[in-house]
């Protein structure tokens, strides 16, 4: 079983955000780099205000868009990986450690 199966994902604790029309500006207190999210990334971001597993997140995003989870599975995973790489999302263990 992949560790990702049980990992929970959530916003980094020090994120600052602003909506600009249909996009979202995201930055952190600890890192002034500014990231602009659009489209599906905004939907993923919105869901991650509450910590949840990847499979729960995929189910929720699929439900919101009225599609089967397998149809959004890859995109959501890629998006979460990108947000993790930017440091604006953490796994809950990181969050608790930080």
């Amino acid at each position, binding site marked *: 079983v992949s560790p990702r199966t049980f990992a929970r994902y959530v916003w980094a604790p020090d*994120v600052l955000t*602003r909506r600009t029309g249909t996009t979202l500006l995201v*930055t*952190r*207190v600890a890192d*002034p780099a500014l990231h602009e999210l659009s489209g599906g990334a905004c939907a993923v971001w919105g869901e991650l205000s509450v910590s949840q597993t990847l499979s729960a997140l995929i189910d929720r995003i699929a439900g919101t868009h009225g599609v089967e989870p397998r149809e959004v599975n890859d995109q959501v995973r890629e998006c979460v990986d990108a947000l993790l790489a930017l440091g604006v999302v953490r796994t809950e263990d990181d969050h608790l450690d930080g």
Partner: protein
Amino acid sequence: MDETRHDALLRSISARGLPGLAEPDPIAVPDAGWVLILGRVRAQRITGAAMESVAEGWLQLTDEQTEQLLSAHRRAMTWCLSVERKLVVLSEAFQDAGIPHAVLKGPSIAHSAYPEPCLRSFADLDLLVPTCEYERACALLDGTGHRRRLPEPRPRFDVRFGKASVHTHPDDGIEVDLHRTLVLGPFGLWLDPEELLDHLGSFWLGGRSFPRLDDTGMLLNVALHAALGWSPPRLVPLRDVLQVSSAGDVEWDRLARWARDWRLAGALKLAFMTASDALAAPVPAAARGILVDGTPRRETRALRAYKGERRSHGGISIATLSAISGIRPKAAYVSALVAPHRQFVAARGGVEGTSYVRRWSVLARWATRWISGHGRRTRGR
């Protein structure tokens, strides 16, 4: 589109979403006037409201105009995020130093009174500290690399007669306005900032909670800013008055008591009337109670000092003098105005070596105007 229609459009944008207001009729902006409109939208810091107006469909912009507005809004929001980052860092430093503080306006109102923070832009950070902690807070800002824009005219002038000082860090250019009271002049002296600090609320930002004035204190703050700040008033403070009074959990009895005890009834009334008139929006029903009483003559006189020519001709200083109790404090105030430290004079003049002569000639002109005006009023009675 002439200037009157430009004004009307800006007011409609500022007022959008207020309770009791119908959506404006659809309006397009001809390209010829667009640059001017966009400039004013940016200057008034209402890019968020303008974006929402476009989304609602009544503000009809071309694709190019929308893109330019979005770009301006993105810049405004990027700046707001920088200010918020600064708030997180500074608030932590204040907390570590044991300096109580409350965030005024800006981020506090954006995150607690508006449906979304993107609807309320701001340019700087305003922090209120107790008067007894003001000098320590100034020292903390200095110790963290901020430079005070203007020195005090004389030692302890700020804590006796002042409102706030502006501190800027050379690396980010963000202004931190450190307040010990809400407004300059008599109203700032009459109100009791310590009591305001006894009634705090909070808001969340970056995973932390920050202290702010509760909704009643916040309404008082924005109303004083709208009535006594810019002349003519800017649109955002006027919107703030109606926004907080309609969306906030205001204790109207407490506000009425403060207005009475601190001689702020006239200023509050002016704020509500101006906001209602400028934004063509009704005064919230709960607020009408504080509008019914007459304004005492002393408050009316003080209010005049903030308006028109008087404001730029020493009106606030003269009104402050009359609000200071006791001969010795009055003398200290006058001597600080007449003979401030040389560094203050130089900083005010913007050049090294500015002489006292220029300052005294300005003060003499103010005095002459005031005496001749006072004589006319006295004879007119």
